């Protein structure tokens, strides 16, 4: 049997681990952590073997489909795109689970933690493996549920419970758009098939969807007088889902609050894996996006804007984890930008974006785990109370600095020397330049360059404030145990060299995603349909453009060193309520006030809900009014019942007399 036949085990084992840990975890040491670790380790081995197999022969992807219900199926699809994601997710998840044994050792309910993270891993793997859009949506919602449960892991804390709710609801807005996209796609395909779907055909499977892209594109809808192709609507709705899940503007507001959960959760879910699901969705349905006029432009612009927008807020945050959260949003913006520039570079965009996704997973998980290590040791998130931590925790400090360099993108252009982050971020910026050159839209490129400067600035600000200088408070602390530092070191190694080692083979591998035995897409033809002009990719950028990312990264490092290391500027003057720019940034552009306090609470909750409540009272009043009228009529009519028999007799006689007269009259008339 080929190893590919075991692909279905990859999500199934962690799912099984969830059930076992949930029911038995309390009785085992460390909350039964060994069960998910073993399961995920096995999944990792299977994924790795499958990936290695697939590297040899990228055209032979693994597909298995089984009927689920009605017209829908469940299935497994391991193509290059899924394979790299699988390997990354199982690997990062494994490391974080090992790390969590130490991190959660003082917690009251470790078994619940490990059960929920196992469920999360299972759902995430199922999301990646889906061969149809509905299963992807199902897993998509399940990872959202796990995120909800894990953000609210310490549910006794009201702030955690609120953050969990906010995360679920905000992503839910995106999810509904995603669902609307699926519903619309289903309806279109159903119409294309004329309502008769042959047995064994699952119309929501990716091969069926992709095969019918031209027909879907031919259907037009009239929205406010504009003729819009259904494929554009569907892809934009999908992208709406991705915006929610991947924390793009304006649905990013939940991600910083999600840091209320344990730091390991932030590392696993809100940095490395779940938040990249949106990027994965766009990459997975890339043939649809490239065939949809304007969709990729929206992706590119919104991604670039999110990259710079989040980075500006990252500069002023004082909470270790919040800086990293804004960094995540910003980097996710880069990944979206990487996909969006597919408008210029075609299918290569998937490789460009995914490569950053994988590298980001390594260094961002590392950053979070380092932050977790610091928080675990000193017991505070606030950078203003830290300083000089490098002396107490050398391993943590060293690994975090490596991650910072990786994030900031240090490396020498044109060579294979550089941190992982450089190897993947540089191509995105280059592609953005290519996109700008070919289409004349320079804004995404400019945003990406400025964001690179800000990235370097905020991450080294964090490094200097936390690890160098004199301790600002008496925090104590110690280096973390080996179960925590070993995963850190492994991740640091990856953040250091993974990019340089795998760059060429990775791009080559991912290029095969849409040409294999499952789907065979002619991307240039689809791009033609979407009205995009693909540029030929050749390294003919000016030297300044080539070196620009490095220059801004070094500039960011220098500024951070001068301001936070040497303290040549007195920050107290800048950091004050009187500085409007600082105030705007520190209050996060007042998004909380606008979205949460005004829109959700005032408009939706108090406005709509209480309006409906009044209408409801109206309905009730109407029903009661009818009954009151009936009762009142009875009240007045019963006065005729006097209880005096003679009156009744008189009335009978009078009635009979009247009847006789009436009959006479009627007879006369007739």
């Amino acid at each position, binding site marked *: 049997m080929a190893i590919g036949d075991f692909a279905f085990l990859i999500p199934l084992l962690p799912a099984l681990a969830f059930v076992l840990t949930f029911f038995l975890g309390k009785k085992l040491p460390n909350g039964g952590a060994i069960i998910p670790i073993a399961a995920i380790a096995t999944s990792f081995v299977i994924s790795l073997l499958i990936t290695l197999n697939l590297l040899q022969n990228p055209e032979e992807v693994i597909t298995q489909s089984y009927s689920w219900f009605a017209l829908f199926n469940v299935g497994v699809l391991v193509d290059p795109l899924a394979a790299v994601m699988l390997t990354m997710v199982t690997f990062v998840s494994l490391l974080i689970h090992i790390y969590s044994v130490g991190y959660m050792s003082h917690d009251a309910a470790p078994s619940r933690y490990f059960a929920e993270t196992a469920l999360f891993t299972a759902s995430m793997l199922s999301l990646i493996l889906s061969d149809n859009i509905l299963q992807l949506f199902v897993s998509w919602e399940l990872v959202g549920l796990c995120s909800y449960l894990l953000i609210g892991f310490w549910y006794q804390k009201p702030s955690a419970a609120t953050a969990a709710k906010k995360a679920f609801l905000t992503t839910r807005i995106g999810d509904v758009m995603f669902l609307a996209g699926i519903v619309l796609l289903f309806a279109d395909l159903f119409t294309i098939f004329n309502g008769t779907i042959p047995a064994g055909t699952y119309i929501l499977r990716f091969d069926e969807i992709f095969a019918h892209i031209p027909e879907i594109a031919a259907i037009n809808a009239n929205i406010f007088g504009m003729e819009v192709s259904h494929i554009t609507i569907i892809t934009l709705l999908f992208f709406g889902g991705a915006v929610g899940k991947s924390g793009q503007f304006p649905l990013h507001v939940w991600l910083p609050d999600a840091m209320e959960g344990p730091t390991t959760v932030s590392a696993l879910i809100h940095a490395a894996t779940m938040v990249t699901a949106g990027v994965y969705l766009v990459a997975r349905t890339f043939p649809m996006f490239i065939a949809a006029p304007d969709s990729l432009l929206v992706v590119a612009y919104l991604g670039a804007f999110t990259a710079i927008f989040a980075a500006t807020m990252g500069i002023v945050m004082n909470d270790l984890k919040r800086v990293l959260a804004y960094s995540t949003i910003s980097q996710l913006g880069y990944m979206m930008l990487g996909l969006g520039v597919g408008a210029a570079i075609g299918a290569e965009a998937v490789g460009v974006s995914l490569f950053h996704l994988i590298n980001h997973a390594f260094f961002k998980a590392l950053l979070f785990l380092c932050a977790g290590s610091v928080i675990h040791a000193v017991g505070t998130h606030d950078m203003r109370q830290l300083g000089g931590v490098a002396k107490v925790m050398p391993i943590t400090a060293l690994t975090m600095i490596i991650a910072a360099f990786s994030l900031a993108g240090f490396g020498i252009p044109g060579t294979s020397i550089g941190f992982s982050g450089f190897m993947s971020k540089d191509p995105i910026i280059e592609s953005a330049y290519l996109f700008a050159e070919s289409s004349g839209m320079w804004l995404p490129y400019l945003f990406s360059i400025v964001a690179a400067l800000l990235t370097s600035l905020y991450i080294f600000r964090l490094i200097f404030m936390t690890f160098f200088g004199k301790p600002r408070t008496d925090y104590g602390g110690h280096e973390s145990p080996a179960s925590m530092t070993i995963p850190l070191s492994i991740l640091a190694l990856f953040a250091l060299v993974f990019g340089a080692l795998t760059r060429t083979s990775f791009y080559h591998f991912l290029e095969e995603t849409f040409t294999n035995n499952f789907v065979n897409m002619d991307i240039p033809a689809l791009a033609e349909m979407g009205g995009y002009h693909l540029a030929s990719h050749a390294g003919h950028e000016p030297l300044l453009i080539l070196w620009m990312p490095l220059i801004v990264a070094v500039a960011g490092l220098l500024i951070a060193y001068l301001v936070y290391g040497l303290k040549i500027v007195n920050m107290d003057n800048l950091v004050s309520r009187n500085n409007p720019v600082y105030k705007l940034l520190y209050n996060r552009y007042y998004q909380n006030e606008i979205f949460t306090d005004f829109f959700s609470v005032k408009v939706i909750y108090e406005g709509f809900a209480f309006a409906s409540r009044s209408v409801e009272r109206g309905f009730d009043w109407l029903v009661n009014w009818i009954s009151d009228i009936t009762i009142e009529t009875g009240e007045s009519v019963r006065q005729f*019942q*006097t*209880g005096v*028999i003679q009156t009744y007799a*008189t009335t009978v006689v009078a009635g009979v007399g009247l009847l006789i007269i009436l009959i006479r009259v009627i007879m006369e008339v007739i």
Partner: protein
Amino acid sequence: MIPVELYIGLAVIIFTIGLYGFMTQRSGIRMLMSVELMLNSANLNLVAFSSYNADLTGQVFALYSIALAACEAAIGFAILMAIFRMKDTINLDSFNVLRW
């Protein structure tokens, strides 16, 4: 043979007397007697038509009616007895508990 109109005229007179009695009297016994009068006027009609049409059904019917009147009278007087025991009067004006 006496023409049937005379029987009917007699029945109308008896019925009217009964009706007048029922509507004006306040004593329960008098009212019951008035009801009997009205019933008997109907019986008179039945018998008269029966003999006029040479069909015995009407007379049989009259017998039924008389039996029924007897039952009704028995129940009526029983109720009046009960009322008399309770209220010491059979003046039905003072017994209008069944109004609204």
